[in-house]
C-alpha cells in the first residue's frame, strides 16, 4: 500500500498535570496536515491504552506509568501513524499531524464501511453534504447553499428564503426530512422559505430521483434529508460561535451552538439570530409590463427581514439504546417587494424608503415549532428506530386592505393565515439475517390538520391521515455488487372543509334576475387514496468506477388546494379551480450514475429518464370568471429526461478545478398544454470552480481562494404565463483561512466572500420575483467568522 509521507512533530508546550508520583497523563492534539484543523474521532491505540479525540482534536490518557509507549494513531480518512511516546514527569503536549489518504478507500473496503463507501454501494443516486461543505459554501439560506450541487436548484423569493428544487421539480414533489421526520410547512406556497435553521447541521443526504419507497408520498423528485447530528463523544464539551456580516442587505447574523456529553447523557443547543435590510439589485428601476418602479439607492423596497431560531435537545446513549429529543422553534418575518405583490401592482402611502431595515406591508411572518424524538434500539441483528414528531407551522401574510372585485375593503391587514399541525410516527427495523442481506421494513404514519384565517382565500381547511408500510432488501451479491429491491403501499384519507366568501358577489341568473350570494369556494369532501411504490436498483463497483442503476415508481397524493380550491387569487390575477377527480400523481424514473476516479481527478455522469402518468398542473385556460382568467388543476402525461455531469481535477498540488453541469428536458405529452414544458423549468447551467490552496502566510493558516463561475443558458422553454429568461454569467469569489490567536484554543476560521463580483444584472428563471422582472441581488461582500471551543 502506498501512503503519502506522514509528517510528525512534537511541540514544546509543557504538560500540566502529574497527579501521582508514578502515574502520569498523556495529552495531545491531532491535526490535519493540509488545513491544520483538528480531527475528531481519531483512535489513539496503545497496549491497554485507548483514547479518541474530541472535536477540538485533543485527547488525553490518564494513569499511565513511566516508560516508553507506542501508539497507533488512526482515522478512517487519514493514513495511520505509529507514534512513540516517552512518559515521564516532564511530559510535553503531543502534536500529531495526519495526512489525508488517497488510497484509504481500499483499506476501508476491508475494515469497515464509511459513509462514502455506503453511498457508493446503494443503487440510489445520493449526494452527501458534510458540515465542511456547508461551512465553506454557506449562502443566505440552506437551499441556496445546496444549489451549488448539480441537479439541485431553488425556487426563491427575496434574499433569505428559498425552497428546494431537484431536477426541475419542487414544492410538494421534494420531501425535506429533518431528524427522521418529514418537515411539514406550507410546501405548496411559492412565496416563503423552508423554515429550517441552516446552522448546526452536520450531514445532509440528497436523493435525486424516485424515493417514495422509503419516504412515502411527495418524494417524487427527491429528498433533502437533514440527518440527526452524531452523538457527541463521551466526556466532551464543545461549541462554536458563528458571526456573519453582509454588505448587500446589511445583514448581521449570529449563531451559537453548544454540546456536552457525560458518560451517557448529552445535550445540545443552538441559537441563531439574523437581521437584514432590503437587498440591493444592480438596477435603478424595474420595468414590469408598462409600469416603471424607480428604486431608491438600488434597494428592492421592503425586502428586509429577521429570523430567530432556537433549538435544544437532550439525549441518552448506552450500548444498545440511543434516544434524543429535539425541541426547536424557527421564527421569521420578511417584507415583500412593495411595488408589486404577486403580479398585482400596488401604490401605497407608506414611506418605504424612510429606512431600509423596516418591514412594512406587505409582509409575512412564520413560526415553525417542532418536537421530535429519535430512539434507536439495537438487539441481536436488529436495529429498531422510532421517530415521533409534532410540528406546528403558523404563517400569516399581511397586506394593505383594498377592495377587489365584489369584495369590499377589509377591516384589517391579515390577508392569509395558515396553521398546520402535523403528528408523525415512523417505525423502522433494520435486520441483518446474515452477511448477504440487509432487510429494512417500516411504517410511516402522519396526521395533519390545516386551519386557515384572514380575508383572502387560497387553500381550504383540511385534515389528512396517511399510513404507509414498506420493506426493502439490500442483497450483497459480492463485495462490489449490490442489489436493492423493495415495495411500499400507502393509504391516505383527505377531508376538505367547505369555505364560503365573507362577502356577497353579484350573480346574474339565467332568468335575467340578479342575486347576491356568499360564493362557495371549497366543499366538504372526504377522499381516499391508495398507491403502490417500488424500487429496484443495482450498484457495481469496478476498481475506481462505480455504476448505479435504479428504477423506481413514486407517487404524490393530491393536495387540498389542487382538489378543492375555487376562488380568485388577486395577487396572481387568476381564478384557481380545483378538481375533485384528480388521481394520485405517479412517476416512473430510471436513474443511472457512473463515476470514475483517476489518480488526480474524477468524473461522473448521472442521467435520468422520467415519465409521469398524470402530472398535476395548474393550467391557464382561455376563459374568465369575474374578469379573472380561470386556471384549472388538470393532469397531463409528462416525459422528462436530463442529468448532471461533474468532473474535478487537481492540476498541480494546490490547484483544484471542478466542473458541474445540469440539464433538464420536460414535455407535456397530453392535455391542454401538450408539447409545452413544465412551469419553473431550470435552464441548462454549468458551474466552474477553481480552488487554490496557499501555504501558510504568517498567522493565516491554510488560506485558500475559490472562484465560482456560473454560466447559465437562455431559458426559452416556457409555459403560460411565464416569460423567457436570458442566460447569464456570474462570478463569485471566496477566501477561507484560519488564525490561531491563542496556542491552546482552536483557530478562528474566517471566510470572506464576494458574490456577483461584477454586479451583473441577471434574472433567475425560477425566482418568484422573476414574474415581475426583478433581477437577482447585486454585488455582496460578506464576512463569516467561526470560533470553535
Amino acid at each position: 500500500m502506498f501512503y503519502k509521507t506522514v509528517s510528525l512533530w512534537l511541540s514544546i508546550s509543557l504538560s500540566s498535570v502529574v497527579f501521582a508520583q508514578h502515574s502520569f497523563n498523556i495529552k495531545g492534539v491531532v491535526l490535519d496536515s493540509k488545513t491544520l484543523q483538528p480531527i475528531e474521532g481519531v483512535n489513539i491505540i496503545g497496549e491497554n491504552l485507548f483514547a479518541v479525540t474530541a472535536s477540538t482534536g485533543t485527547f488525553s490518557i490518564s494513569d499511565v506509568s513511566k516508560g516508553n509507549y507506542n501508539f497507533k494513531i488512526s482515522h478512517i480518512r487519514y493514513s495511520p501513524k505509529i507514534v512513540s511516546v516517552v512518559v515521564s514527569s516532564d511530559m510535553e503536549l503531543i502534536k500529531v499531524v495526519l495526512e489525508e489518504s488517497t488510497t484509504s478507500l481500499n483499506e476501508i473496503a476491508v475494515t469497515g464501511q464509511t459513509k462514502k463507501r455506503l453511498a457508493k454501494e446503494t443503487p440510489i443516486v445520493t449526494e452527501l453534504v458534510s458540515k465542511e461543505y456547508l461551512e465553506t459554501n454557506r449562502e443566505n439560506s440552506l437551499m441556496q447553499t445546496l444549489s451549488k450541487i448539480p441537479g439541485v436548484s431553488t425556487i426563491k423569493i427575496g434574499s433569505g428564503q428559498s425552497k428546494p428544487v431537484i431536477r426541475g421539480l419542487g414544492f410538494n414533489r421534494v420531501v425535506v426530512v429533518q431528524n427522521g421526520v418529514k418537515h411539514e410547512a406550507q410546501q405548496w406556497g411559492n412565496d416563503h422559505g423552508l423554515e429550517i435553521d441552516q446552522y448546526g447541521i452536520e450531514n445532509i443526504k440528497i436523493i435525486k430521483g424516485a424515493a417514495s419507497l422509503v419516504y412515502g408520498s411527495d418524494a417524487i423528485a427527491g429528498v433533502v434529508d437533514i440527518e440527526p447530528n452524531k452523538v457527541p463523544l463521551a466526556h466532551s464539551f464543545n461549541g462554536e460561535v458563528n458571526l456573519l456580516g453582509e454588505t448587500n442587505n446589511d445583514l448581521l447574523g449570529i449563531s451559537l451552538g453548544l454540546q456536552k456529553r457525560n458518560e451517557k447523557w448529552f445535550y445540545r443547543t443552538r441559537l441563531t439570530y439574523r437581521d437584514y435590510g432590503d437587498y440591493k439589485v444592480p438596477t435603478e428601476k424595474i420595468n414590469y409590463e408598462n409600469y416603471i418602479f424607480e428604486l431608491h439607492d438600488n434597494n428592492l423596497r421592503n425586502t428586509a427581514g429577521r429570523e430567530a431560531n432556537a433549538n435544544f435537545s437532550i439525549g441518552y446513549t448506552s450500548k444498545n439504546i440511543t434516544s434524543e429529543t429535539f425541541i426547536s422553534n424557527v421564527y421569521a418575518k420578511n417584507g415583500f417587494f412593495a411595488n408589486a405583490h404577486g403580479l398585482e401592482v400596488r401604490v401605497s402611502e407608506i414611506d418605504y424608503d424612510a429606512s431600509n431595515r423596516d418591514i412594512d406591508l406587505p409582509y409575512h411572518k412564520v413560526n415553525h415549532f417542532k418536537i421530535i424524538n429519535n430512539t434507536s434500539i439495537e438487539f441481536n441483528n436488529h436495529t429498531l428506530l422510532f421517530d415521533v414528531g409534532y410540528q406546528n407551522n403558523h404563517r400569516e401574510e399581511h397586506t394593505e386592505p383594498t377592495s377587489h372585485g365584489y369584495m369590499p375593503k377589509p377591516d384589517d391587514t391579515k390577508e392569509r393565515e395558515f396553521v398546520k399541525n402535523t403528528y408523525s410516527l415512523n417505525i423502522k427495523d433494520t435486520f441483518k439475517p446474515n452477511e448477504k442481506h440487509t432487510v429494512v421494513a417500516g411504517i410511516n404514519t402522519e396526521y395533519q390538520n390545516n386551519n386557515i384565517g384572514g380575508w383572502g382565500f387560497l387553500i381550504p381547511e383540511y385534515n389528512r391521515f396517511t399510513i404507509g408500510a414498506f420493506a426493502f432488501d439490500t442483497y450483497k451479491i459480492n463485495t462490489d455488487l449490490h442489489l436493492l429491491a423493495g415495495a411500499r403501499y400507502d393509504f391516505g384519507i383527505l377531508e376538505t372543509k367547505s369555505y364560503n366568501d365573507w362577502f356577497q358577489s353579484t350573480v346574474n341568473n339565467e332568468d335575467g334576475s340578479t342575486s347576491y350570494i356568499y360564493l362557495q369556494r371549497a366543499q366538504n369532501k372526504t377522499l381516499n387514496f391508495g398507491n403502490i411504490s417500488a424500487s429496484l436498483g443495482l450498484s457495481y463497483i469496478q476498481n475506481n468506477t462505480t455504476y448505479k442503476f435504479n428504477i423506481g415508481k413514486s407517487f404524490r397524493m393530491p393536495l387540498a388546494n389542487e382538489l378543492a380550491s375555487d376562488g380568485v387569487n388577486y395577487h396572481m390575477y387568476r381564478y384557481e379551480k380545483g378538481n375533485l377527480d384528480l388521481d394520485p400523481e405517479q412517476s416512473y424514473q430510471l436513474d443511472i450514475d457512473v463515476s470514475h476516479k483517476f489518480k488526480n481527478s474524477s468524473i461522473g455522469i448521472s442521467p435520468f429518464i422520467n415519465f409521469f402518468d398524470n402530472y398535476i398542473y395548474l393550467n391557464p385556460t382561455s376563459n374568465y370568471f369575474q374578469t379573472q382568467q380561470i386556471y384549472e388543476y388538470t393532469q397531463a402525461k409528462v416525459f422528462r429526461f436530463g442529468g448532471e455531469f461533474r468532473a474535478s481535477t487537481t492540476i498541480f498540488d494546490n490547484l483544484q478545478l471542478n466542473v458541474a453541469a445540469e440539464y433538464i428536458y420536460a414535455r407535456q405529452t397530453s392535455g391542454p398544454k401538450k408539447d409545452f414544458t413544465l412551469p419553473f423549468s431550470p435552464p441548462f447551467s454549468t458551474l466552474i470552480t477553481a480552488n487554490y490552496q496557499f501555504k501558510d502566510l504568517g498567522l493565516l493558516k491554510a488560506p485558500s481562494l475559490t472562484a465560482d463561475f456560473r454560466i447559465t443558458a437562455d431559458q426559452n422553454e416556457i409555459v403560460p404565463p411565464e416569460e423567457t429568461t436570458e442566460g447569464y454569467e456570474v462570478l463569485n469569489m471566496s477566501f477561507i483561512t484560519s488564525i490561531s490567536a491563542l496556542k491552546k484554543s482552536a483557530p478562528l476560521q474566517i471566510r470572506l466572500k464576494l458574490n456577483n463580483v461584477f454586479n451583473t444584472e441577471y434574472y433567475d428563471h425560477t425566482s418568484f420575483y422573476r414574474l415581475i422582472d426583478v433581477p437577482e441581488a447585486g454585488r455582496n461582500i460578506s464576512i463569516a467568522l467561526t470560533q470553535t471551543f
Partner: protein
Amino acid sequence: MLSDFITHTMKLTIKHFYFLAFLILVTSCSSDDDNTTDLDKPTILVNYDGGFPQACQELSKGETYSFSALVIDNLELASYSIDIHNNFDHHTHDDQEATCELDPIKDPINPFIFIENYAIEAGLTSYEINVSIDIPNDIDSGDYHCSYSVTDVTGWQRITSLDIKIID
C-alpha cells in the same frame, strides 16, 4: 451463478451506457427544433382613434358609452373581460404611461362595479371590442380604473388598465 451472470450483464450494459448517454445528449439538442408551441401573448390596443375610454377620460353619470379596444393574437383569440372598479384609495396607477390627476383619497359608499366576461367567436386573430355600458346615476363619482383583459386559445393573457373619472 447469479452473481456471475449479473456481473457479466453489468459489464455489457456498461459498454452500452456511454452510447446511451451520447444518445440522450443528441436527442436533447435536436428535439428543440420541433417546437411548434404558441409562445406569443395577445395584445390590446386602446390608444387609437376608435379606442374608448382613453387614459384620464371623464365619463358622466347617466350616460351610455361604447367601450372599444382592438385585440390581436398571432394564433386565435378566445375571450375578453372588462372590469371597472374604483380607485378611491389610489391603490394602483394605470399602465398607459399617462399621469392623471386624482381626487383626494376617500372611502367608497356605493361604488360602481362592472365585471363582465365575453367570448370571442372562433377563428379570429383580430377583433374590435365594442361593449355598451350604462354609467348609473346612483353611484359614487370619482377615480376609477377600467381594465381590459384578453386571452388566446393557448391560455396566454394580456391585461391593460386605464385611469378614468366618473363625474356628476
